[in-house]
Every structure is written in structure tokens, then in C-alpha cells.
């Protein structure tokens, strides 16, 4: 099936040639070895502490993957002038952009799959040795991993959007990192200013600005299901459905805007 998307396949293979999975296996092994160490400092909840550490590490590695691999995808083609030879192929610019995104998404799926599987083994091992007060819900782990992947895909779509304008990988990298930080803070700030204390301390103009930022930037906090996994908390299916749809919607909008900008771009 992937043969129908040669550029996506090439992007995926390019990532593999960078020995991405080998590096990930090394990182996963380090993570597995340090997990029990982090947990041993806990007073009561060894599994909870180790799981907190490992899930945070998986999320951080995922963001690094998007930034480090994704930022160079399109600007590298432009800088090395590969884009000219691609332009001679019977492939539209939109298709080129979407296949690049698809290639990156495939890389992320594989990477997170490997990382997630090894991490799951580590958590299972620790939970067997130190059973938590509340037995872990393994379905919640899948929920966490799935939505962490969706968060990375949203971030990748933002990256592709910025890459559609940029000539070097630096600008998309910095801007995506900024969106990542804003995306994880905007909900907290919005909720704060909506409290009585927040309303008292924040100027009305700033409150309006926060509302605009909240709806403009992706709300990445919504994709965070770590706490549900760590403490075996119930997950509301409605929340899952709306988060999933929200993510897909944001990706579609970002890629549409990126395609529109990239189609109008002058490479000469």
C-alpha cells in the first residue's frame, strides 16, 4: 500500500537510515534501567513514581523526535535543491507536502511503538514487584500512548505548516517549540483567569488575549492522559472521542494551510 506513496516511503526510509530506531532502542534501554532507580526513592508508590518518570520521558523523547527529524524534512530538500528535481515529477506540491507529513507520521508511529512496548514491559515488571494500591489499568496505557502519538502528529502538522514558509530548519524548529510550550500552558492560564482570583489579578485585555490564544493554538494538555495511567483513574469515553476529533481537525486545518502556502511559494 505504501508503494502508492513513494515520497512518504522515502521519508520513512530516510529516517531509518539515520539509525533512528537503533538510537531509540538504546534510549529505551537506558530508560528501562533507570526506571527502578527512580522508583526506589518513593516512600509508598514505587510503581507510580517509576511510571511517572517513564511516561514523562517517553513524551519528551517524542517531542524531540518531531523537532529534530521533522524540522529538517522540507527545508533540507529546498537547501539541497532536491525540490527542483521533485518539481519535475508528476506530483503536486500539496501531495509532496502531505507525503512528507505521512512519512514523518509513519516514523513517529514506529518509534513510539518501539518505545511504548519496551516501556510497557518495564512498568509491568516494576508493578509485579511493587503492586500499587490500585491495580494498573493497562487499557489506560494504550489511551496514553495513542493520544501522546496524536499530540505528536498535531505538533508535526504545525511543524509542516511553518516549514512551508521557511528556508532553513531553524525557524520551524523554534516556532514549533514555542507552539509546544504555549499549547501546554494555554489551558492552565485560561482556567486560572476564569477563577475568581484570576479575574481579580488579570487585566480585561489580557483575559481577551488569553481566550484568543487558547482557541488559536493547539490545546496540547488535552492529549495528556498520564495521570489516568499512573493512578488507574477512569477515562471518560466522551473526552476521548472529542479529543480525538479535535486533534484530527487541527491536523487537517494545519496541513490545508501549509499546502495552500506551499503551493503559492516561489522557489526561484
Amino acid at each position, binding site marked *: 500500500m505504501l508503494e502508492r506513496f513513494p515520497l512518504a516511503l522515502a521519508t520513512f526510509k530516510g529516517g531509518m537510515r539515520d539509525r533512528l530506531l537503533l538510537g531509540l532502542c538504546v534510549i529505551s534501554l537506558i530508560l528501562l534501567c533507570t526506571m527502578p532507580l527512580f522508583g526506589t526513592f518513593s516512600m509508598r508508590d514505587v510503581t*507510580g513514581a517509576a511510571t511517572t518518570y517513564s511516561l514523562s520521558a517517553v513524551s519528551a523523547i517524542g517531542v524531540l523526535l518531531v523537532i529534530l527529524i521533522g524540522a529538517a524534512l522540507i527545508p533540507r530538500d529546498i537547501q539541497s535543491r532536491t525540490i527542483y528535481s521533485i518539481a519535475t515529477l508528476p506530483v503536486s506540491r500539496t501531495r509532496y507536502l502531505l507525503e512528507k507529513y505521512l512519512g514523518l507520521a509513519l516514523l513517529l508511529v514506529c518509534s513510539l511503538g518501539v518505545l511504548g512496548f519496551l516501556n510497557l514491559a518495564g512498568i509491568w515488571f516494576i508493578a509485579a514487584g511493587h503492586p500499587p494500591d490500585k491495580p494498573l489499568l493497562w487499557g489506560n496505557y494504550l489511551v496514553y500512548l495513542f493520544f501522546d502519538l496524536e499530540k505528536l502528529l498535531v505538533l508535526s502538522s504545525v511543524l509542516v505548516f511553518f516549514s512551508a514558509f521557511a528556508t532553513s530548519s531553524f525557524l520551524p524548529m523554534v516556532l514549533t517549540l514555542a507552539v*509546544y510550550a504555549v499549547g501546554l500552558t494555554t489551558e492552565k492560564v485560561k482556567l486560572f483567569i476564569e477563577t475568581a482570583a484570576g479575574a481579580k489579578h488579570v487585566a480585561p485585555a489580557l483575559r481577551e488575549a488569553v481566550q484568543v490564544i487558547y482557541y488559536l493554538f493547539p490545546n*496540547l494538555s488535552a492529549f*495528556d492522559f498520564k495521570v489516568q495511567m499512573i493512578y488507574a*483513574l477512569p477515562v471518560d469515553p466522551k473526552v476521548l472521542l472529542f479529543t480525538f476529533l479535535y486533534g484530527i481537525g487541527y491536523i487537517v486545518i494545519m496541513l490545508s494551510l501549509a499546502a495552500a502556502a506551499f503551493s503559492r511559494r516561489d522557489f526561484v
Partner: protein
Amino acid sequence: MKRLLCLVVGLLLLVPSLLSLTALRKAAPPPERLGVKPSFEATYFTSLEYRYLLSELLFYDAVFYYGSMLERPKERPDYWMIAKYIDSATRLNAYNIDAYYFGQAVLTWDAGMAKDMNVILERGAQRRTWDFYLPFFLGFNYAYFLQDYQKAAHYMELSAKLNPRMTFLPNYVGRLYYEANKTEQAIQYLKVIYEGTFNQAVRKGLLMRISALESIQFLEGAVQKFEKQTGHPPAELNELVRAGILKKLPPDPYGGTFYYDRSDGRIKTTSKMALQGAEQ
């Protein structure tokens, strides 16, 4: 040859400076190592998706600091800063049982902050609705430190409902209503905490307190025996030895000396069952 020379120069710079730096940092007083914690708001808004990890790290900082202070019994730990760390850790992650556990083990006993700790615990009990420990802690604090037996019984009942295996709790609740013997309450409570924690530094501290309280309970029994025999309380604990009730007075594991306080008829110790400098 040049490369080798550069490597040697680099190593000559690195190794002695690293060793000196390690020694200097080790010599720094523990409060300096704990550092000044930024406000909760700053921590919360900048924690991105790592607030749960940050919560664990804040707890670890506080527990390592406390562990290092156990090695320096003559110095008073900065309990106020520990309380700030525990408060932030539990606000960043209201499910972080480690932080509640540590705060309860240290802040109530050593720092006399039972009221502040109850505010933190009540916040936690609202989230960890399955956990019997938090209402148990609340119940104990209300009974032992704040003498509010009504609230204590309420939380102990809640705790007993959440963990029916703790068969002593219903009796304990009953005793609370009648303001039962406080030393026994304390020993039972500490034994539950001791069994539930894995951290060796905290276990060491708990064992010390259990041992001190058991000695007090033992002396209370001896005083009662003395009163039965003579019809009056002893002027001092050595009278129990002279009367042949005790062979000798038990030692205080905190390094103090037990004494009989005639004003309230209670056994006390000069160490106040805390690391030196700590307030009761």
C-alpha cells in the same frame, strides 16, 4: 602527539576541579542544597506536560534534604521550606501519595504543623477517594494534635470504610469518642505508617519514635503501679526504681532523658522526641 597533549591538559583541568567542586558542594549546608523554591504559580505554569514528574522531583528534593538532616541531629531542618515543597508537590499532582506520606511523617510531629498538614491532606482526600490512608492521617491529626475528637472519629470511620481489613480501626474510632489513651493511639498509628513505607530514612525515623513512645507507655504503666502501691504519684521517675517497680529507666532513643511532669501527670522527655532544635 598534540592531540594526546591536549587530552592530558584537559584531564589535568577536569579531574582536580571536579574533585574539588564535589567536595565543596558536599560541604554546602543542606538548606542551601534544598534551595529556594519558586512560587507554586510559576512552577505550575512552566511545568508543561511534566507536572507529575516535577511533583515527584520536588518530593524527592524534600526527602533527600530531610535524610541529610537526620545525619546532622544538632541542626534544625527548615520545616517551613519542606512544607512549601510538599504543598507544591501535592498541588502539582493531587494524587502524589508519597508527598502526603512524607509530610505527615515529618511536618506534624517534628514541626508542629498538624493544622497546615490537614489542609493539604483534605485536598488529597478529595482526589484519592479510594485511599484509606489520607482520612486515617486526618483522623489521627485531629485526635492527637488538635484534640478535635468529633472530626477525628468522622475521618477514622471513613478510613475504616475504605479499608475493612484494618480491624483495629472501628475500636480505635470508639476509643476516640471516649478520648482514650493517647500514647497507645500514637503507637498504633505509627506502626501502620511504618508498615506502609519503603523509604529507609523515614522508616528509621518512625522506628525511633515508636521506640520512644513504647518506653513512655511502659513508664506510664509503672507510674500507675506506683500510685496503686503508695497512693500518690512519684516525685520523679527514679522513685520507680527505688520502689523496685523498675530495674532501671529505659533510654530515650532521641538521646534525652525521660521525666515525670507532676503538673499534668504525664511522662515526658528532655529531647521532646524530635531532632534537636525542632519545636514540639
